[in-house]
C-alpha cells in the first residue's frame, strides 16, 4: 500500500525514518521525497501487514502518516480529453495515447490535488 509521511520542521533534522525502519524492520520503499525549510514529505510503498507497526513507530516520533487510498478518479462524462492535467501532475498519472485519448494511471497518484484545480471541466476528484 501507498502511504504519505509528513514531518514538521521542528523534527525534520532527526533521522526518524531510519529509526522507524530499524525499529520495525518494515520494508519501506520510498517513491517520492520532498523537503524544504518548512516541512518534509515522503511517499512510500509498504507491505500492508507492516503498516500498523511503522505507523505507530512514526507517529510516536512526531510524524503524521496517512494512507493514500483515495487516488484520483475521472468523470468521463465531464472530461473533454484536453490533456491540461498532463503537465501539472508531479508523478505522471496522466498521458495522451496515440489517438489523443486521455490515459489515467491512478496507482501512481500521491493525492497532491494539483490536477483538481487545473482541470477546467471539474472532471477530477480524489477518492471515489
Amino acid at each position, binding site marked *: 500500500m501507498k502511504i504519505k509521511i509528513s514531518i514538521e520542521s521542528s523534527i525534520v533534522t532527526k533521522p526518524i525514518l531510519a529509526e522507524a525502519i530499524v525499529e520495525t524492520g518494515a520494508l519501506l520503499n520510498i517513491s517520492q521525497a520532498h523537503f524544504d525549510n518548512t516541512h518534509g514529505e515522503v511517499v512510500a510503498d509498504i507491505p500492508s501487514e507492516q503498516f500498523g507497526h511503522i505507523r505507530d513507530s512514526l507517529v510516536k516520533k512526531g510524524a503524521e502518516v496517512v494512507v493514500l487510498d483515495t487516488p484520483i478518479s475521472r468523470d468521463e462524462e465531464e472530461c*473533454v*480529453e*484536453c*490533456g491540461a492535467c498532463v*503537465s*501539472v501532475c508531479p508523478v505522471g498519472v496522466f498521458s495522451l495515447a496515440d489517438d489523443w*485519448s486521455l490515459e489515467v494511471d491512478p496507482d501512481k497518484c500521491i493525492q497532491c490535488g494539483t490536477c483538481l*484545480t487545473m482541470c477546467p471541466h471539474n472532471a477530477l476528484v480524489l477518492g471515489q
Partner: protein
Amino acid sequence: MVKKTIHEINGRIRDGSVNVVTAEEMVDIVGELGAEGAAKEVDVVTTGTFGAMCSSGVWLNFGHSEPPIRINKLWLNDVEAYSGVAAVDAYIGATQASRSKGLEYGGAHVIEDLIRGRSIDVHGTSSGTDCYPRKVIDTTINIYDLNQAIMLNPRNSYQKYNAATNSTNHTLNTYMGTLLPNHGNVTYSGAGVLSPMHNDPNYETIGTGTRIFLGGTQGYIVGEGTQHSPESGFGTLMLKGDLKEMSSEYIRAASFEGYGTSLYVGMGIPIPVLNEDIAKATAITDDDIVTNLLDYGIPSSNRPSIRSVTYGELRSGSIDVNGKEVTTSSLSSFKKSRQIANELKDWIKAGEFFVSMPVERLPRDTACNSMKLSSVNPLVGDIMTSDVSIIQAEASFNDAAKTIMDKQFSHLPVVDKNNSLVGIVTAWDISKAVAKAEYDLVKDIMTKDVVTTSPDEAIDIAAFKLDSNSVSALPVIDAKKQVVGIITSDDISKLLARRQ
C-alpha cells in the same frame, strides 16, 4: 492549373461523388500527389477545433409576459445577462460570473444548461413604463420556451494562440490554466494541423456568410471577429448558430481556478479546394505553425516572448525552456477537434452540408491596438518612499529592533554585503523573536521569500501583489537587486482615495 467552382463541388455533394478529407489527411495527400494532383483529387478539406473561447455568448428572446415588462436588469440562474436591448431580449456572456456561486458557475454554465434542456431561473427588474407597467418578473424557463436562442460569439477561432509558462517562484492561476513555478510546465491551445484559419491563411474561402460547423450544427461566419489582427497572424472570426440545435458534446462550460468561467466551443470550417493554391495551403502541418512562448509571470499585456515554438514541438509532450526540458499540455482537445473535422466530413459526404463562398472577404490589414488610456498610469517610482532604512543580514537582532523603533517604520529590507536584497524583517518578526526569547542575527529571523516590485512597475500591479500575497509592504529594487525604496499598502490606498 486546376480550377473548380463552388457549384461544381456542391453538384458532387448532391450526387454523392464528392471527395472530402480532413486537414490532417490532406498533408499526406499533397505530399504524395503534389498540390496540383491533390487539387484534382480532393474537393473539400475539413478542419476542426475545440477549445476555450471566452468571447462567446447567446442572444435570447423570452417573449412578452402578461402584464408586459421592459426588462432593465436580468439574471439567469443568478448570472447577469445584458438586457439593455428592447423589452425581452438579452445577451448572456460566457465569462459573466454568478452573484451567489462566484467563479464556479457563470454564463458558460447557463449556456450548457440551456443546451441540456435544464430549467433556468429568470429574475428581471424594470422601472416600469406606461406601455410596460410590470416591474419585476420571476419565472423558470428552458430552451424550448424561448423564441430564439442564437449563439453569437464576437471572437472565436483564433488563428493561433501564444503558449504560456511562468518564471516566478509561485504558482499562477490563469486563463491558460495552472502555471507551475520556475517554468514548471507549459500550456498551449489550438488544433495545429486542423486549425481552421491556418488552413486558409489568405481567407480565400473563409469570410462573411461561410457556412460552418458550430456546436454540433450548421452555423455561419458573421465576419471578422473583434481584435482581428491578420497582419500579426492573429485573425479571429465572429460566429453565429442556433443554440437550440447544438449539442453539449461540442459546447461545454469550463471554469479556470482563480480566473473564472469560459466556454469550450467546437467549430469546424470546410475549405472547398477551388485551385492548387488552396490545396497547398491545406497541407500545412504542425511543424509549419509557429507561435510564441510567453512568460505569464510578467503581469503586463506586453509579455516578452521567451522563444518561438512550433505546434509540432508543443504537441510532442515537452519543449526546451532555457535549457530545461519542460512538460507541455494542451487546454484544447485534439481528440475532439479531430472528431469535429470527421463529423463535418461525414455530413458533406452524406449530402447534408453544402459548401459556400463568402459574400464578403475578411479584412487582411487590420491591427489590434491597445486600449487608449486618457490618464497616465502612475508607477511605483512615483509614489514609493525612497528614504528607506535597510539592515545588513549579519546585524544583530537588537540593531534591527532599534532601527524599527527609531524610524517608526515596520518593514526593514535586509541586504547582504553587496547591498543586494536578501530578505525582510518586520516588527512582527521582532515580536516573534522576543516571544521565543531567541535573540539571533537578523538573517535568522528575517523572511527570505520576499515579494518585491520595481520603480517602473504600474501601481495596479504592486497593489495586486500586496493583496494576493497578503503583505503590507514591498521593497522596491532595481535590476541589480539594490533597494531603492519601499511602497506600502497605505501609500497605495492614499493614491486610490485621490483617484476616486
